[in-house]
């Protein structure tokens, strides 16, 4: 197969996997952020 026979960017499965991976990374970052935030809130509340 030649290079032109592989439409990588239009492969629905590859595109779908990419979108899901990006969503998972974004969700992990959000969850990690909230873990840190809740920890910080707890420390602040304990000192009040």
């Amino acid at each position, binding site marked *: 197969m030649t290079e032109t026979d592989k439409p990588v960017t239009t492969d*629905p499965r590859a595109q779908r996997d990419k*979108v*899901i991976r*990006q*969503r998972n990374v*974004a969700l992990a970052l959000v969850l990690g952020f909230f873990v840190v*935030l809740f920890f910080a*809130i707890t420390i602040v*509340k304990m000192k009040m």
Partner: protein
Amino acid sequence: MTQPSTAALPLPAEWRDFFALTKPRVMSLVIFTGLCGMLAAPEQIHPVLAFTAILCIALGAGGAAALNQWWEADLDAGMRRTKNRPLPAGRMDKTSARDFGVGLSAASVLVMGLAIGWLAAVILAVSIVYYAVVYTIWLKPRTPQNIVIGGGAGAFPPLIGWVAATGHITLMPVLLFAIIFMWTPPHFWALALFVQSDYAKVGIPMMPVVAGEASTRKQILVYAVLLLPLTLVPWWIGGTGRVYGISAAVLSTVFLALSARVALRRRTGEDDAMKPEKQLFAWSVIYLFALFAALVADRWTVMQG
């Protein structure tokens, strides 16, 4: 059992589309006024809790915006300004948008209640319901006064910010609420004057569509006239100092002058560029930022003097 092929499944929405669903540009004004309400309050709040409160205000606004777009997806598809949003463009299904909106809204209220206080959480919940239900579902498709009453939704952030810092409601945060409430009609009607063909197309009874341009222009002036003394009340009652008072007087006078120019003119024809209306809309955004910045600057001046 056979599995459906991956190619047959719809492409899931990207994280960028969920972010776009929160109306980030509107959120910036919400965050700013909420932060100013908090900074202008007479009591100080721990920076971590202040950050959490502002985050909750932002998440609540984002959740309400997502619910607004979920409900209005069909209307958005018919307007040039909104047809590329995630739902009308077909990049997201309606159920995802609804669940995202409900999740963000519930999380924001819960975190606000647990971390900051339940009075601030209740006001945040009221503001979300006010925007998503009272304005979006009930008023917007029914009455040309939708903007007047619905403007209350955008007026909540400084009130929530103030209550998050102090734990109680006084006259000052209610005045801040009233200022944004009174600012909203001329701000949105100026926009509606130069995008009115879009609103008319989807049957939203915006004031220029129902009452006509002349009446809308007159009402813009009425609200601008009422806004000027209202912005000075915090100074008159001693809630703020001269920095705010003079800033409010200057900013509101310019707002009134631009509103008067819009009120006294008529559209010259179909090719009218609507420059005065666009200038009033642009100034209305600058005006609110500047007015609340002056409020915070005044507070810092008082604290240091």
